């Protein structure tokens, strides 16, 4: 499985690793007694650990190069996973599976703590954000690094309209979505002539402009201190306790997730969705086939922004507080990670991606200071071993029945 050369390489890597970590892992200065403690055992641990890890690494790399059938044979367990996948794909299994999932989602807030529910709401919001960005990046192929700006527009629309005009959540929800969409169109018009890296840089700059504006228009937006005291979603004016309000927000967010999935699915399999994918595949060819590129780009940009606006309104309603620090470049990057990790252009993938990206760091808290290290490691591994994401996008398969076949003769 692993060649001799690779074992030699692992030893070399281990040596390099030992030299690299020598200063921090071996030398320790005891400042009280002014002596240097040489922890030679640490060096040994690192050496042995690195050799084992890198041999394992090479083993995985070798396996990746095998043909799928050979791979199955080489790993008995893998065969079982494959059949498990087959079982999961059956409609008989899928329906109860989805039903069970639904039941779990409905029971979840009643059996878990307020804190857990809060995290779950965040995860669901990222599902919406991921699906929205998926329209732009996954379907349209436009690399967008300023998506958090539209998220901010939604959040601040609700915050400001409530602060100055006293408008409620339900009034602000469509207004927030529309204003994000409008901004999407306004920004899109000049920016969309650009492609690839250039588009990425300009959208990145746009994201920063929005954040810096929010920080500095302090007389309206409260500056870095933000706006607090935003009410949670209301239900015909009924007063709710904190936990009921949280549960209510949870179910609202979940309903919005279902709505998003419904709309995005329909868009994807429509004339418009196809034109986005064609644009992603080849701009010149799609234009030559009669697709209006400007329209396709603008619509994907605007419809992507729409979901960010909706999620933004939910965000300020959930946290009852907004400030510019929630809408940094990091936020845009995380949303992009959701899309890429889950599977570019795949709805199921993006849903899974959002849940993993948000929940993983939470549940890695057990490893406290190493959790971001693990998180990064998982991202790197994913991109090497599953570059298509958790659930790679599949194209729709059309079936033709006999009657249709004869008709077209």
């Amino acid at each position, binding site marked *: 499985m692993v060649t001799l050369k690779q074992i030699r390489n692992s030893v070399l890597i281990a040596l390099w690793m030992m030299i690299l970590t020598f200063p921090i892992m071996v030398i320790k200065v005891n400042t009280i007694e002014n002596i240097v403690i040489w922890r030679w055992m640490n060096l040994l641990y690192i050496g042995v650990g690195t050799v084992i890890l890198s041999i394992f690494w090479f083993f995985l790399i070798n396996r990746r190069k095998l043909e799928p059938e050979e791979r199955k044979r080489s790993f008995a367990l893998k065969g079982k996973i494959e059949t498990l996948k087959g079982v999961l794909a059956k409609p008989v299994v899928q329906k109860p599976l989805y039903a069970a999932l639904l039941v779990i989602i409905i029971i979840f807030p009643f059996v878990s703590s307020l804190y857990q529910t809060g995290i779950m709401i965040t995860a669901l919001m990222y599902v919406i954000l991921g699906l929205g960005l998926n329209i732009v990046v996954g379907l349209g192929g436009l690399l967008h690094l300023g998506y958090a700006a539209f998220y901010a527009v939604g959040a601040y629309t609700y915050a400001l309209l409530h602060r100055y005009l006293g408008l409620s959540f339900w009034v602000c929800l469509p207004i927030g979505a529309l204003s994000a969409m409008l901004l999407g169109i306004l920004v899109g018009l000049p920016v969309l002539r650009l492609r690839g890296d250039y588009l990425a840089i300009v959208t990145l700059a746009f994201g920063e402009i929005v954040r810096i504006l929010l920080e500095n228009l302090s007389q309206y937006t409260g500056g870095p201190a933000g706006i607090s005291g935003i009410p949670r979603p209301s239900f015909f004016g009924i007063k709710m306790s904190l936990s009921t309000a949280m549960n209510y927000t949870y179910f609202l967010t979940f309903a919005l997730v279902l709505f998003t999935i419904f709309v995005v699915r329909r868009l994807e399999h429509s*004339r418009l*969705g196809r034109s986005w994918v064609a644009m992603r595949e080849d701009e*010149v060819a*799609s234009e*030559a086939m009669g697709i209006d590129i400007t329209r396709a780009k603008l619509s994907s940009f605007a419809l992507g922004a729409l979901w960010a606006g909706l999620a933004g309104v939910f965000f300020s309603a959930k946290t009852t507080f907004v400030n510019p620090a929630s809408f940094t470049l990091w936020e845009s990057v995380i949303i992009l990670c959701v899309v890429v990790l889950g599977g570019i252009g795949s709805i199921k993938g993006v849903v899974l991606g959002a849940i993993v990206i948000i929940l993983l760091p939470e549940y890695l808290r057990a490893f406290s200071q190493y959790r971001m290290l693990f998180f990064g490691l998982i991202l790197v591994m994913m991109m090497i071993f599953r570059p298509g994401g958790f659930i790679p996008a599949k*194209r729709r398969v*059309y079936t033709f029945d006999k009657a249709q076949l004869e008709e*077209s003769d």
Partner: protein
Amino acid sequence: MAAILDASQVTMDFGGLRAVNNADVHIDQGEIVALIGPNGAGKTTFFNVITGVYKPTTGDVRITAPGKETESITGLKPNKITEKGLARTFQNIRLFQNMTVLENVMIGRHCRMKAGIAGAVFRDRKTREEEEQVVADSYAILKKIGLETFVNELAKNLPYGAQRRLEIARAMATEPFLLLLDEPAAGMNPHETRELDEMILKIRATEKISILLIEHDMSLVMSISDRIYVMDYGLLIAEGQPKEVRANPAVIKAYLGEEFNA
């Protein structure tokens, strides 16, 4: 009857380089016209000018769609020109690699469809019917071109010859009256070229589509063209029927160089 395509005095400059120089090309209804010339002669640039990828420096391109008035298409965007009934293929295959064969053809139908955002979301009866119609139409086109076995295959997984034919199928889906083929036989073996030959003739016969093609494969050009234009260094140096062009000394000179007389 007016020519369906009439490009008059088209010139295209790129900075100091004159890629197409004062070209006059016209195509009549039902003709198969070939545009030939050595590499770098400006053939593809001329194609790009007609299909709207480039706006000509000077000159005018007019079309007369069957049953319609003559109109100028100079400076229109490529998608508009496609809507008006000119469809093209590309020299280096430009399929939508990660879409299925059927979807590639469905994209070709795009400009003949109407559904917008609301239709996509609400999926009303009209949109559903349109969608079904498009699938059926696209399948019929694939069948005509002989690609129906690949229907749900990704375009990138197709054999080379099939990819070339898929490009033609996709162009035909836009319902053109003039099909512009940029080196359709490039990279094909003699057998595939012969099949292509038959296919082009069949398209003209059954679909009433006129064809302008760029091609280096002389056997194909000579056997199917009604008329040939020869281009060299951006200039049209000859025009006429295959046998006239073959005997034209200017053409021989462009291809083989000048004869040296000691």
